[in-house]
């Protein structure tokens, strides 16, 4: 007989294909009913009616909507997401190219955000009401409220144009273009695999600024959440007991209090990472970063529906995967939900 824990896991796992199906269905329907003719993206504004009709037939747009969806679904289960009009490549190839760029940026950003955001959140909670707390609150408030394009432009202006200590927009110097073979699509990793240290340092240098800008936004969120969780926890009776027992302040804070909020932070961290992986359009635009956010936006504006569906699916799968992961970790780490 299945344990409740296994049952819950099975239910969570079963919800994944249903959610994905719903996501594909809704995106497909939005794509078909939005007021842009997808044929225009292919044949242009000048094409005569017979060429438009011919392409409409080729795309299967003359079929009823449910037939179109069925055909799309049939191809999808075989891993065929169709071809992008804007890039001329298959959507799978595009995702293989664009998603790692976003992944590299998001991973760097979330690492920086976590390393900075969590400790300063804890510090702000411990020093509640002090000057340190106020300074941290102002910094995190700015991270939350400043538009990201302003941050990005200020960053470029200061570190790239004025101090000249950071490289400009782009993933790498044009001198290194195509110097390392693509294996993972993560330029820093691929350059290490190829043993090209110069390319690695260049890629890392190009990564720091956009990742830093994105990280500031996520860091602010993580710090504020950490502070709130910690304040809540520090009021707990078990903390008073721990202090009364004469435990060192560091042990009380990091082992007892932080240990208690770690589970909730994992969820926040996972969702923040998933949010970054969906593609940060504005950061990608300012830093000329060829990521999924830019790809999705350009595809959407050009009614390139295969690309939109493919990219949305990747975003959806990412979200689901991280949700599932957070859920599993939650169950694993929190004895109350076992």
């Amino acid at each position: 007989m299945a344990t409740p824990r296994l049952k819950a896991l099975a239910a969570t796992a079963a919800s994944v294909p249903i959610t994905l199906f719903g996501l594909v269905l809704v995106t497909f329907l939005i794509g078909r009913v939005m007021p842009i003719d997808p044929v225009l993206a292919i044949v242009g504004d000048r094409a005569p009616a017979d060429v438009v009709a011919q392409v409409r037939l080729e795309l299967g747009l003359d079929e009823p909507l449910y037939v179109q969806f069925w055909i799309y679904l049939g191809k999808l289960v075989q891993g065929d997401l169709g071809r992008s009009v804007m890039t001329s490549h298959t959507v799978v190839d595009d995702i293989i190219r664009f998603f790692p760029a976003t992944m590299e940026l998001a991973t760097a950003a979330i690492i920086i955000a976590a390393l900075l955001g969590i400790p300063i959140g804890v510090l702000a909670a411990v020093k509640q009401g002090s000057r340190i707390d106020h300074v941290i609150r102002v910094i995190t408030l700015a991270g939350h409220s400043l538009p990201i394009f302003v941050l990005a432009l200020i960053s470029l202006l200061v570190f790239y144009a004025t101090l000249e200590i950071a490289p400009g927009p782009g993933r790498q110097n044009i001198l290194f273009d195509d110097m390392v073979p693509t294996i993972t699509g993560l330029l820093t990793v691929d350059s290490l695999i190829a043993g090209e240290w110069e390319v690695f340092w260049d890629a890392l240098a190009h990564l720091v600024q956009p990742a830093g800008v994105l990280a500031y936004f996520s860091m602010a969120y993580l710090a504020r959440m950490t502070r709130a969780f910690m304040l809540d926890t520090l009021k707990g009776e078990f903390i008073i007991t721990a202090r009364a027992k004469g435990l060192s302040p560091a042990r009380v804070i990091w082992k007892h209090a932080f240990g208690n909020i770690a589970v909730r932070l994992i969820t926040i961290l996972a969702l923040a990472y998933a949010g970054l992986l969906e593609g940060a359009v504005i950061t990608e635009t300012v830093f000329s970063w060829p990521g999924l956010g830019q790809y999705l936006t350009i595809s959407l504006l050009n009614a390139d529906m295969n690309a939109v569906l493919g990219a949305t699916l990747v975003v959806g799968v990412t979200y689901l995967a991280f949700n599932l992961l957070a859920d599993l970790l939650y169950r694993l780490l929190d004895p109350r939900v076992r």
Partner: protein
Amino acid sequence: MSGPAQLGRRAFTFAATATPFFSFAGAAEAATPKDTVVVGKAIDDIISLDPAEAFEFSGGEVVGNCYERLVVPNPANPSQIIGELAEKWEVSADGLSFTFTMKPGVTFASGAPVTAEDAAFSLQRTIKLNKAPAFILNQFGANKDNVETVIRATGPNTLVFTIKEKVAPTFVLYCLSANCGSVVEKAVVMKNARDGDFGNGWMKTGSAGSGPFTVRSWKASESVILDANPNSALKTKPKRVFYKHIVDPSAQQLQLQQGDIDIARDLLPDQLKAAQANANYKMSSAPHSYIMYLCMNQKDPNLAKPQVRQAIKWAIDYDGIQKNIVPTTYDVQQSFVPKGMMGAIADRPFKKDVAKAKALLAEAGLPNGFEMTLDHYNGQPHGDIVQAIQANLAEIGIKVSLMAGEQRQVITRYRARQHQAAVLSWGIDYFDPNTNSETFCVNIDNADDARNKTLAWRNSWQDKDLSDRSIAAVKESDAKVREKMYADLQRDHHMRSPFALLFQATGWAVMRKNVAGFALAPLGLRTRYDQTAKA
């Protein structure tokens, strides 16, 4: 095609925020390799680099650098046609047969000679593939069934192009000078053909031409890299041209300043002004073929009244809008043939005259005005311009509701004739006045399922006289008579059409002071990099 300066509000805001800072910043030392020209440009409009398919602005520019055509407009005097791959050509007495003799000694990038067979194959391929630009060639009667008969190589150096109906020879030649008339190397293309695609799949990201460059790579939304063609007779100066995809104009400006790019192609008016005053930069500008216009759907009973159409044309403050909103990037243009093209006229019949406009409205039986919607692109400068027009029309009692949309969304509504009025842009397809005369005047079949959805059709406007005269003009062999026909057509078009022509775009490139030999080509002709060098 999208307009050259249709920037999103986001990009506009970026620039507005950043420009004050940049004005004080100096230029750093150039960091790009001396033999590589790095161009900062938004290149996400490219959908293919195959000349039989590329029809967007950036793709067209790349094709122009990698291929040659039989004939081209003379860059120094575009009203004259000169041979590029063709040494000479003859037109038969009946005007139906064009015989081209190929120049000897021209080779493709592969080193193989360019032959008449390659040229015939290239034109046939464009027709057979039937992609977006195919209509430029198939309007002469060629189709996939007869193309091998009407376009054929009759010898190693001789190509004959037979047209169905006599038209002005210059019209045929200008059409052959379009990107889709580029000559590709048959052997290379067919070697890479798959499933009867005439090599289209491979050519989307490759090249097989005789131009000064070859395509090394195209990474969508990232870069296009062109390498010098070692077999080009043009003695190409740079070894490489690197197009770097930079959407944000402020990022373009910063990278130009820091020397990470040599040429910036999409700066905004304020940035251009700052660059003009900075000795570290050089500028190149040229009239663009894009014309911005306001159109009125004749299905609307109010807008169908001639006096209302004229009232709207007299209510707009053309000069005020140009000076205040687009001082560097657009000029006032009130006729459909763009400045710089054969048949262009300098007439400016309309200026803001509120009293006259109100009188015309009263004459139309609408003294208190009326309400209407105005569709437009949501990017700049369209957004600001339509707001100014909205204010102008309010002065004569016309209450305008603005309907902003993404470009393709607006065009979808426009092609379905669902708009009331709209402000849009139009660029030429080939270097002959017929390209605009046809679309702004001709509407033979006004049915909803008409084959040819010209701009006249999209506004449900039929003027048989102008339609017939436009068709007659394209058949006129005498260039001087033809030119006068277009001038007369435009003057009548001013008075009778539902189009208020507004502005013609100006293209700008800003380059670092060490860059020499680069100039933007006018009216969508080829902008090339083969003579661009860095000191």
